[in-house]
């Protein structure tokens, strides 16, 4: 039997505490391994530590204890610069509130990650950004200001931005959190499509059970611990 492919992400014993005098434990020892091509839903009540975990995985914060290995890189050995560079190459982010830069066009927003990482835009990056915007159905909106797009369109630009540089892992924090049902379904369908077509691994934080049920796997956090980790049975029919 062939060896299973190496995991994209390994979180081992991750603890996160806040505060100096009164310590608040946001994560109390989380172990999580994500294989390539998985589309995982991360669910749990408010304050369960979902966002904290996502920040640790996204290398925006460091764990108080434990390790995070991303694409084979042990991130505890990296300095701020190293983390920034790893973020630029390994990760894509989709935020709840789209978070496009309002002063820039859709195309420029999609280009910003590779531009900010390398300093100059390359022809390849530009081509990839345009292709990505076409793929999310915004071919005719390339040069629209972010503020001139609808909420659903903005979130599609955000997905294009997260994927344009082809990161192995995309983190989505409530990507459908403030979209109507139709737009939500559309945005999730895009993520599912890129997961299948490009083999991109997704971790999606969500409150929406309809979204979670369409993922491959559901990880539930309560009080900073993983209380359940189960595969989703394939939809009937």
């Amino acid at each position, binding site marked *: 039997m062939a060896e299973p492919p190496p995991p994209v992400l390994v979180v081992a014993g991750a603890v996160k505490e806040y505060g100096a005098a009164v310590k608040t434990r946001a994560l109390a020892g989380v172990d999580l391994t994500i294989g390539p091509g998985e589309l995982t839903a991360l669910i749990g009540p408010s304050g369960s530590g979902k966002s904290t975990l996502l920040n640790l995985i996204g290398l925006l914060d460091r764990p108080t204890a434990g390790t995070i290995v991303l694409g084979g890189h042990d991130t505890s050995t990296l300095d701020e610069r190293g983390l920034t560079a790893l973020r630029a190459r390994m990760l894509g982010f989709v935020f709840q509130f789209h978070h496009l830069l309002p002063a820039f066009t859709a195309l420029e927003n999609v280009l910003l990650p590779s531009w900010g990482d390398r*300093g100059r835009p390359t022809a390849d990056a530009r081509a990839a950004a345009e292709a990505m915007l076409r793929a999310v159905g915004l071919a005719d909106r390339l040069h629209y200001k972010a503020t001139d797009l609808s909420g659903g369109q903005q979130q599609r630009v955000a997905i294009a931005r997260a994927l344009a540089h082809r990161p192995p892992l995309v983190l989505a924090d409530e990507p459908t959190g403030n979209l109507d049902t139709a737009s939500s379904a559309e945005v999730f369908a895009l993520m599912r499509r890129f997961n299948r077509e490009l083999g991109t691994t997704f971790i999606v934080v969500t409150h929406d059970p309809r979204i979670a049920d369409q993922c491959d796997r559901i990880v539930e956090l309560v009080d900073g611990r993983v209380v359940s980790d189960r595969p989703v049975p394939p939809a009937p029919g």
Partner: protein
Amino acid sequence: MSFAWFVALRYMRDARGQTALILAAVAVGVSVIVFLSALIGGLQTSLIAKTLGSQPHVTLRVPREAPRPLVEPGPDLAVARDVTERAQRLRSIDQWPSVMRTAEGVAGVIAASPSITGAGFAVRGEATSPVVVRGVDPERFLAIIDVRARLIAGRYELDGGGVVIGSKLAAELGVTVGDKLRLSSSEGRDDVVTVRGLFTLGNEGVDGTWVLTGLRHAQALYGLPGGVTTVELKVADVFAAERVAAEVRARTGLRADSWMAINRELLEGLSAQSSSKLMIQFFVIVAVALGIASVLIVSVVQKSREIGILRAVGTPAWRISLVFLLQGGVLGVLGSFAGSAFGALLSRLFEDATRDVTGAVRFPVTLDLELFALATAIATGVGLLAAVIPARRAARMDPATAIRNG
């Protein structure tokens, strides 16, 4: 285009109103600096030129004759004495040709001219006027004070009983070129001379009293055959006159007075003016810096979520701070260009508005490229410096917190 330039320019373009306001503030500040420098520089240059138009840079004369008491008081000797100052008589400088050669050998001296300066009266008919008789070597004297260029009538001819006199004096006596007048010296000798030319040096005292004549003629009038009472020097750098005077004093043992010592009050006034100019400019620069810094700090706070996103998607912190440093620099450069132009315009308008009735410029302004280059350099430096705090603040921002809180 590089990322930092692109984002910086886009941010400035996106916040057009804010950018225009702060640019205007920088421009006003720079124009004040340019205008003040041009005005005060021009005034000082013209004041000094006017002052030096009628006096030598350094004047050498014999030391004052001092009375020598027979006994000096000491630690164990008390003396009751009455020392009376001696009356000063007109005396010649000993060995003046060699003194002149020595003076010419001092670094910085570019011309030397021997002369006799004495008091007297000019008489014509009923009119009598006190005068200063200046017996000079005609050619050498021109290097000290260019009288020929300031003639308003007649010719610069001092030989054969000819004199050239100040225009005010001429008006006082009612004489003009070709007229004769009687000159009597303080030594009691007199002579009839012919007016060959009239000059205006722009100094009331000089134009109302000076009578220029040949050296030999003056020597006869004052009973100083072959002698001169002063040697006048011109130096290359007018502000080195005091240093040159000290050197000549040391080498010759004569009294050497520089124009700087004689016009101490003028120089003190000019230096006070320069200090107040610097002070105003300094505070203007501080105000400009505070303006740029506060606009950029507000911009960093407003854009903290965007900065967080840029950091999250992999933009290094230094590149983010560069975005804000560049904005500061660009504001400085553009503001200084606009300010230089505005300052130059203001200077010219001021010059025109203050012309006197004849249309002559009363307050000349000096605008040179150096001033604009300096203003641009200062404004750019101040812009960059003012951007340091906002830039650091932007770089230190924690992306997770910034994205969460905006």
